[in-house]
């Protein structure tokens, strides 16, 4: 079985999955920056005490799953989302979805993804991809990071869906359910709400570690790292920051998607005109 589906490459995995899934149910106007904005994807937090891969924890985005959830909510689209305990049930549910013509998004761990280069394989569990069919016993995978669709065997897919560790996906699958048509007004309202929520997240969270205050705080800490941690460890921490920002999908395209100089961009480029 193969569902008619166009692979879309995106700067960030969750944006990409959101856009692909929504386009697939007929929301033609959605684009990556739009999904990111409506979902208020931009965020910053630095948690000095929490360690990830032996370095400090940064996040340049909202919690995994929120961009999709908020975008669908703003557009009045129902979402079906399911986690599993049993690997067998997880596989059966996926097959059922594909049989009934639904393209599904999956949360997976990166470490065992067969098509990823070895250098990028860390135990990171908030990656998203789309399964859009099965041919000759292999699942057809659309990973928004990759240029072209990939394939994965039963075992490979099961292993990444049931990756363990922090934020373990537990076979999580999700897909939007097509409902009433999306009007331009809804998108406009969604954008407005998205921006308002983003302002709240970036400016009005109490405490020094989140939002704009968090960026300032991190900057001050970085200056002190060299003295307090020594050159080597400071370098490691800085490398961690760069990787969190540019790779692993936590920030990557996002900063450059949102923070465009206003002079370069007319609102009409992304907001559908009308009314």
């Amino acid at each position, binding site marked *: 079985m193969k569902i008619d589906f166009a692979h879309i490459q995106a700067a960030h995995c969750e944006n990409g999955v959101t856009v692909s899934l929504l386009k697939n149910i007929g929301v033609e106007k959605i684009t990556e920056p739009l999904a990111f904005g409506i979902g208020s994807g931009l965020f910053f937090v630095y948690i000095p005490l929490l360690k990830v891969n032996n370095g400090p924890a940064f996040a340049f985005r909202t919690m995994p799953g929120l961009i999709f959830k908020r975008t669908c909510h703003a557009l009045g689209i129902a979402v079906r989302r399911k986690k599993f305990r049993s690997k067998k049930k997880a596989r059966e549910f996926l097959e059922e979805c594909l049989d009934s013509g639904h393209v599904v998004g999956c949360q997976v761990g990166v470490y065992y993804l067969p098509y990823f280069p070895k250098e990028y394989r860390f135990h990171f569990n908030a990656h998203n991809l789309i399964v859009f069919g099965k041919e000759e016993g292999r699942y057809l995978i659309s990973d928004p990071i*990759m240029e072209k669709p990939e394939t994965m065997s039963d075992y490979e897919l099961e292993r990444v869906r049931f990756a*363990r*560790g922090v934020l373990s996906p537990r076979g999580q699958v999700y897909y939007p359910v097509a409902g009433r048509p999306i009007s331009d007004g809804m998108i406009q309202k969604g954008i407005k709400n998205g921006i308002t929520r983003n302002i709240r997240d970036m400016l009005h969270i109490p405490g020094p570690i989140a939002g704009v205050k968090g960026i300032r705080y991190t900057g001050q800490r970085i200056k002190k790292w060299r003295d307090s941690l020594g050159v080597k460890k400071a370098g490691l921490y800085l490398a961690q920051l*760069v990787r969190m920002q*540019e790779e692993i999908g936590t920030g990557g395209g996002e900063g450059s998607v949102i923070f465009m100089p206003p002079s370069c*961009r007319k609102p009409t480029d992304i907001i559908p005109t009308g009314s």
Partner: protein
Amino acid sequence: MKKEEVPQDLGSLGKITKELCYATDDSGKYTTELSQGWEVKAGALDVAWQDIEERIAAAREKVLRQEASPLLYFMELKLMDIGVLAGYTGFWKWQVRRHLRPGVFKKLSARKLRRYAEVFDVSVNDFYTLTRT
């Protein structure tokens, strides 16, 4: 960033796929451009991998000095920490921590050793030879 300024330094991901970036075209409108990689990112990744290699080497030394069980070496080799290893094996974290002691490791049952070996994708024998696959 202008479209021509998108970095094109061939990195490890660049050999397999190109990344999507947002950049401006001649008229100042935003559009997308594919990037092969960026040396700053490659540098950061190198630093991270160097650290991992050092950790693996340090773990190996510790095992050889009988200060830790071979599980530590394989845990570092597979980039795991105690939480991840506990998740994959199904043991509790405190059990894994205990199994990392050489004395306790020696008394582990064959079944438990097999469970670890499966998770690490090695044979039980590799635990004693510390072969790297």
